[in-house]
């Protein structure tokens, strides 16, 4: 059935309530196109969403999905994928969801390297709770809870991922539709944890990290001739704090996914209607 799937099949009949112009529209469209393009169908795709404006993505897409609690989407995705490795698992959320309340899970999901795709809609602000500082907000960015700016350096999610042993790190921009789709597609096709930080501007609460800002400042790594399999080059780009890059920054093609290391291959939903064969041996072990 996959050959007939159109990207609109991933669209639910529910109209998004995002503010007009929100970057999340573009982020979602690119994800749906990437899913269709990589041969997935809504029936074998599982989308896990965080909490935030970004987390509403699960509502506007059509697939098997779970819209969970704040910050815990990655563990849910991990459980889904390990229980049924045949599913395409896509986890999505915001920068607050992923790098603040869920930061611990992020580090561990990265190092676990389960074969799923993690898309963070980074608008450098808390959208849903109406404009507080997020972990990626600039240190002088004035918000309702940080009237003089957070006065702390922002988290560098790419560096956090790299330091945690990521096997795939990319960054994209929701309004560059084609490149965004290509980048998400590369993450889906990556055998392991595909991490994409997407600049997805909040037009309501962030007047600094705007479309114009990203359009002017973003450098496409592809145009620069960056080789994502070159570890040193990747490290250099990731640590360059004053530059905004777009594209696949680091891909370890030799990394082994969690599933391969741990022999995960069964669809666990299929079980016998009584104790499994050989279960009595479990008792005899206690002789």
């Amino acid at each position: 059935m996959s050959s007939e799937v159109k990207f609109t099949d991933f669209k639910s009949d529910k109209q998004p309530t995002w503010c007009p112009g929100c970057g999340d529209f573009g982020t979602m469209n690119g994800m749906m196109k990437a899913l269709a393009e990589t041969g997935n169908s809504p029936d074998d795709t599982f989308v896990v969403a965080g909490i935030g404006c970004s987390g509403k993505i699960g509502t506007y897409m059509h697939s098997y999905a779970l819209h969970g609690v704040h910050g815990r989407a990655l563990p849910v995705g991990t459980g889904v994928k390990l229980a049924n490795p045949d599913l395409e698992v896509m986890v999505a959320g915001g920068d607050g969801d992923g790098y603040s309340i869920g930061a611990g899970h992020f580090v561990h999901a990265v190092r676990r390297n389960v074969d799923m795709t993690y898309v963070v809609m980074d608008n450098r602000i808390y959208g849903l709770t109406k404009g507080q500082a997020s972990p990626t907000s600039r240190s002088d960015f004035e918000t309702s809870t940080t009237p003089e700016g957070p006065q702390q350096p922002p988290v560098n999610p790419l560096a956090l991922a790299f330091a945690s042993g990521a096997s795939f790190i990319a960054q994209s921009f929701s309004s560059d539709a084609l490149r965004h789709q290509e980048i998400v597609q590369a993450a889906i096709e990556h055998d392991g944890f595909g991490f994409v930080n997407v600049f997805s501007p909040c037009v309501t609460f962030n007047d600094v990290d705007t479309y114009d800002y990203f359009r002017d400042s973003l450098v496409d790594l592809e145009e620069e001739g960056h080789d994502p399999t070159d570890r040193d080059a990747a490290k250099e780009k990731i640590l360059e704090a004053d530059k905004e890059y777009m594209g696949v920054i680091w891909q370890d093609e030799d990394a082994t996914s969690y599933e391969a290391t741990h022999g995960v291959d069964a669809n666990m939903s299929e079980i016998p209607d009584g104790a499994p064969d050989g279960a009595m041996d479990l008792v005899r072990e206690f002789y």
Partner: protein
Amino acid sequence: MAEDFNWAIGGEAGDGIDSTGKIFAQALSRAGRHVFTSKDFASRIRGGYTAYKVRTSVDDIQSVVDRLDLLVALTQRTIDENLDELHENSAIIYDGERSWEAEIPDEMYAVDVPLKSLAEEAGGAIMRNVVALGAACELADFPIENLDESLEKRFGDKGEKIVENNKEAARLGKQYVQDEYGTLSTEDFDFELETTDADYVLLNGDEAIGMGAIAAGCRFYAGYPITPATDVMEYLKGRIEHFGGQVVQAEDELSAINMALGAARAGARSMTATSGPGIDLMTETFGLVATSETPLVIADVMRSGPSTGMPTKQEQGDLNMALYGGHGEIPRFVLAPTTIDECFWKTVEAFNLAEKYQLPVYLLADLSLAVTEQTFAPEAFDMDAVEVERGKVVDDAEIEAWLDEEGRFTPHAATEDGISPRAFPGTVDGAHMSTGLEHNELGRRTEDTDVRMEQVEKRQRKVDTAIEREDWNVREYGNPDADTLVVSWGSNEGALVEALETLEANDVDVRVLSVPYIYPRPDLSEDVAAANQTIVVECNATGQFADLVEHDVLERVDRVNKYDGVRFKADELAVDIEAAMEEA
């Protein structure tokens, strides 16, 4: 003389107390004797006092008693800690060559065995505990050959030589006692641990929970280590994989329950286990599990709280949390196994209930069940009797009945029995979203007042359905016509059943109900009404279960509470019950 023999080995944590005790317990069990073990341990790896106690009899035993006949003391503290359980004719094995001078009360038999030297003679000082086991065999008149197989089991993978050395160490211990002390067979210390040809298995409650999970088709387990629940994870790891399953050690409990939730959404029978502090962390997601109507088994192996409390001590303090934990109102079932074999069966039942009613099920075990081992006939875990009921799962063919007029699947259809259809991912046309937000039949967010009420009532209706369809029974002991009713839940059952014998011997008549279900729970109102006095026995200070009984029967009940961190002992409980009866 007495056929009920109580034995213990104690020393510092790190002295190998646990494995030594286990070797002897296994030897007794393989020799066809009933065994019941208990542990005193501190939450330190080195430097804390630890003891492993073994009670054995040819009769069935289900609890510990306040008596020690033989003690292997590796430190003075072992003797001091156990003084109140030692009696006039107890024997104490110690190593007089060690630097401490053992202070042993005059009336007891001091059995000085050079454990270390004899172990060295056998091949290494490390075997001194095994020398002590050999000495114990001699004193208790237990054929030492029975020890051999346990030693093989324990040391087999270290090579033939190590096994042989250990057997030799045991024999040197036995020989030494025989040479120096004769058989120590006096009128008062005259044990002869007879063997039978019965077949027993020896396991603890955590292991029984893990075994029950595999039997029930659980294939995914995510957890984070915490005493006393860790054994469940350790048991499953290395075993569940043979059945196509996985164990994941998550970064914390928040992650563990979310992973388990994800696996359950993908169609796996999934579980997590933790203890009180971990349950606190899981509580946020617990609400999501319930609202998204996901079947999940969460085992809370209770320990003494609050906060980090006394991590290695017994308590039944989390009942209220299991019943009421979480914001908002959420239906959940709470099962509480009362014995080690019931840990197995209640786990199986928990999975069936979770899937049949699509809600989270708490399995409320406790430290006493988790860390003590007991012998059972293998048939107590009859795998042929395990049934797996997956509830209302719809496949590609059946799904049509559950699509709305626009062809969308309705995972939260407000059915008459409250139970909705479930479609595993991969089912054609079943794609749907689950959420912690209040939702309509499609699973989509709503704040519509009617839909909100419909979904709340639908979820609650599952409980009514379950009350009607399932048998929320009790286990009954004692005299059914007695005027005094004793009600218990969780691990107190064993001690209570044994206390009955003492009470009977004192001409005290009671009827005992042991309740394995907290919610829903059996209706005890007629039983309470028929009794003159009702006494609820539990290991907590406030009487959380007693409160529930009072709530149900609209009548005051009496309470026996223990919250010192130690489980009820049979003899002690008999005294407490008599006291409660006198007070009434």
